[in-house]
């Protein structure tokens, strides 16, 4: 037992001189006393964290009073005093002169309106399907162990936008493919020739990028474009058979519009932002000039002026007769705005990359785009993921500004419903805003948590 406790010390000191082994000599260290009761357990934690000094104690008391002042009021309003059921305003009116808490009955009654806006009730399954497809796409992209994340990428960035467009509007998303077909048939001889040149150029560029012989590539490129055109024509023929009725974007509304706009912004702003960031760091003066001009201009003005511009000036800039959907105008505004901010985030990532990486890539004989695609961007984007997600959070919050230019987004649905006379009660407005805050918070905090987790994961890789 003794030897087990402190073998080194006992053996080293006592073995050579057995004479020291008297009864009163302490051969082994005393076991440490337990820490004082005031330093362990709950008391100790309280002492250390809340009452370590006079100043700290005062701070604790102030903070506690503050919390006592705010938090019970919140709980009472949101939960205990809240009205959960009811058909109209009578449920949420003051009783005996006492105001009730949150009127959740109102939210329950109008939840369909909040989510779908004026989307036809019998077609709402399409929106539900959009939510499911979107959730699948997001999970596929974000879940690191998901199978075939490369297919997930294609699904999220290419297939999903087309499917969602078809699903929500009921229009053929590939209608644009028939455009060249119609041109060849009609009087557009010049345009037809232009298209032939375009076919040629495509094949030529493909050949160059792949370092293959030009001839077959031109044929292959032209053939694939032709095939696409005919395929588009075929799809356009089949399309009416699918039987999705057309729903005008003016009828879209609520959370669905917020998610569509945020989704489009998210999908569009990253590639645009990357291009702008590369342009800003380019050695070509004209490219650099235009990139800097665009980025600094957009970042220097408020989003609301960009939206006003998209709303009032864009129609002026287009030739007469070209109609631009209101939602599309707002999308263009928000997408361009977000891409300018994204460009700066990506640029920071590009700058953080050691110059040796660029030089190494060039020494390997890679061209500009190969270097960017294979060496620079994968590393630069990896370190910027948290900042990219932060930009996305800003974008998601900014979608609420659409209500100012008359788009029926989630916040607008809340604003419309809360002044409805059927639910005119004193606590309806705070309830509506509380509900909106919870929904927005849920999405933004989710994204922020993802960004933090990514940051931790990436910094773990750098730790040695």
């Amino acid at each position: 037992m003794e030897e087990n406790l402190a073998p080194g010390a006992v053996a080293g000191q006592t073995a050579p001189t057995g004479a020291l082994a008297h009864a009163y000599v302490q051969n082994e260290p005393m076991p440490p006393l337990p820490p004082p009761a005031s330093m362990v357990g709950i008391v100790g934690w309280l002492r250390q964290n809340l009452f370590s000094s006079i100043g700290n104690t005062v701070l604790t008391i102030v903070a506690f009073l503050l919390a006592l002042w705010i938090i019970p009021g919140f709980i009472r309003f949101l939960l205990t005093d809240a009205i959960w059921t009811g058909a109209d305003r009578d449920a949420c009116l003051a009783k005996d002169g006492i105001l009730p808490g949150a009127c959740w009955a109102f939210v329950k009654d109008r939840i369909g309106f909040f989510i779908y806006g004026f989307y036809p009730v019998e077609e709402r399954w399409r929106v539900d399907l959009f939510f499911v497809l979107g959730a699948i796409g997001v999970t596929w992209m974000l879940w690191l162990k998901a199978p075939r994340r490369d297919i997930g990428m294609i699904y999220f960035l290419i297939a999903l936008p087309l499917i969602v467009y078809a699903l929500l509007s009921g229009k053929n998303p590939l209608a644009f493919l028939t455009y060249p077909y119609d041109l060849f048939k009609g009087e557009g001889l010049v345009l037809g020739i232009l298209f032939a040149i375009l076919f040629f150029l495509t094949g030529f560029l493909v050949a160059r990028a792949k370092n293959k012989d030009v001839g077959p590539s031109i044929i292959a490129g032209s053939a694939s474009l032709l095939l696409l055109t005919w395929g588009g024509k075929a799809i356009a023929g089949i399309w009416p058979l699918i039987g999705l009725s057309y729903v005008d974007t003016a009828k879209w509304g609520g959370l669905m519009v917020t998610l569509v706009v945020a989704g489009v912004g998210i999908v569009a702003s990253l590639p645009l932002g990357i291009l702008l960031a590369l342009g800003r760091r380019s050695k070509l003066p004209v490219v650099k000039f235009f990139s800097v001009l665009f980025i600094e201009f957009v970042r220097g003005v408020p989003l609301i002026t960009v939206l006003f511009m998209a709303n009032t000036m864009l129609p002026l800039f287009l030739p007469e007769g070209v109609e631009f959907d209101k939602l599309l105008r707002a999308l263009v505004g928000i997408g361009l705005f977000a891409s300018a901010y994204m460009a700066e985030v990506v640029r920071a990532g590009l700058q953080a990359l050691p110059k040796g990486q660029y030089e190494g890539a060039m020494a390997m004989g890679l061209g500009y785009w190969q270097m960017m695609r294979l060496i620079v961007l994968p590393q630069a984007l990896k370190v910027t993921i948290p900042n990219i997600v932060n930009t996305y959070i800003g974008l998601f919050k900014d979608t609420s500004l659409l209500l100012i230019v008359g788009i029926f987004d989630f916040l607008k649905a809340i604003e419309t419903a809360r002044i409805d006379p059927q639910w005119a009660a004193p606590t309806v407005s705070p309830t509506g805003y509380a509900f909106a805050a919870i929904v927005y918070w849920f999405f933004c905090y989710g994204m922020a948590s993802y960004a933090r987790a990514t940051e931790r994961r990436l910094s773990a890789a750098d730790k040695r």
Partner: protein
Amino acid sequence: MSSSDNRDPRFAGGAEKPRVAFWNDPEKRGYLFQIVLFLLVGYLVYMAGYNAVDNLQKQKIASGFGFWNNTAGFDIGQRLISYETTSTYGRAFWVGLLNTLLVAVVGIFFATILGFAIGVARLSKNFLVNKLATIYVELIRNTPLLLQLLFWYNAVLKALPDVKESLALPGGAFLNTRGLFFPEPVPGDKFEAVMWILAAGLVGYFAFGRWAKKRQAATGQQSPVLWVGLGLIVGLPLLAFFALGMPLSFNFPDLGRFNIRGGVQIYPEFVALTLGLVIYTAAFIAEAVRAGIQAVSKGQTEASYALGLRPGPTLNLVVIPQAMRVIIPPLTSQYLNLTKNSSLAVAIGYPDLVQVFAGTVLNQTGQAVEVIAITMAVYLTISLVTSLGMNWYNARKALIER
């Protein structure tokens, strides 16, 4: 392989400059690409301009800046300079711009104080303080500013009592759904003298500060700058104020049956906008402050303690100067964000630049291009001036490295 050799003369050897097809020469390709880009952008701009002129002519909308001197014909509630319904659009522009600047300055002032307090609280070792600050930041940062503004305006300020049931506040002020009314200070004859003494005190304070700094650098002796400053800026003017027989009277608001006369009115729109902007921006400033303080390595604090500095001077002389270098750039961008976000005033009807000019004036004149261009130019100028100042500050404060 052989075809590749034929096509690529760079490997053919020999001293003569290799002949490369122009599309394989990065330099020439660069020129070509730039020319194409330039032509493309130029074409787009030209087409946009052409279409705009065409469309404007067809819609019979005037162009040019002639509208600037036309009569506006609408009223603006809150104004810092005189403005009548008969004033010009140009005058309305200045009223809006001044309102924007007012809300920006007031907002920046309070957001800085609140943001620094919360940023420090987030680093506090006190569990309760720390958690409260974290909840604040996470709650505010993750909900849209517009939602918060609408909440403050529609749910909080609109719920205040009517004029008839105004809340009487101490000091003769009233609070009701039309805003906050408080006594208007009316300076007397000799009040100007007090202001001059205050100005002199400020000059004296700066002079003393410079002298004290030089003295410390030369002799190591510190001077009581804070107390001398307080005496010069607060004490001296107060003394003069009382000595001159308090030359200041108040015009108290008078509560009538339907209206309040006299006094100074702070509009609820202004309160809601300022409150929303301050609370929102403070959360971001707090994060910048936290990051800045955390960026100062712990060794700095330890070294300072090892040199015998107490916690107060350590914070003031070692940590804060280094943290500020990290904090200032994001802080400036938050100030800019606050200024730009003040344009959300349009949602709650505060007459700022966007609401007055890009809203009402645009709707009345229909001259979208000119109005939006002027509005954007104003914000761009503010951004540009701020970033110039920022660069100047960075250059001054940058670490001088070898």
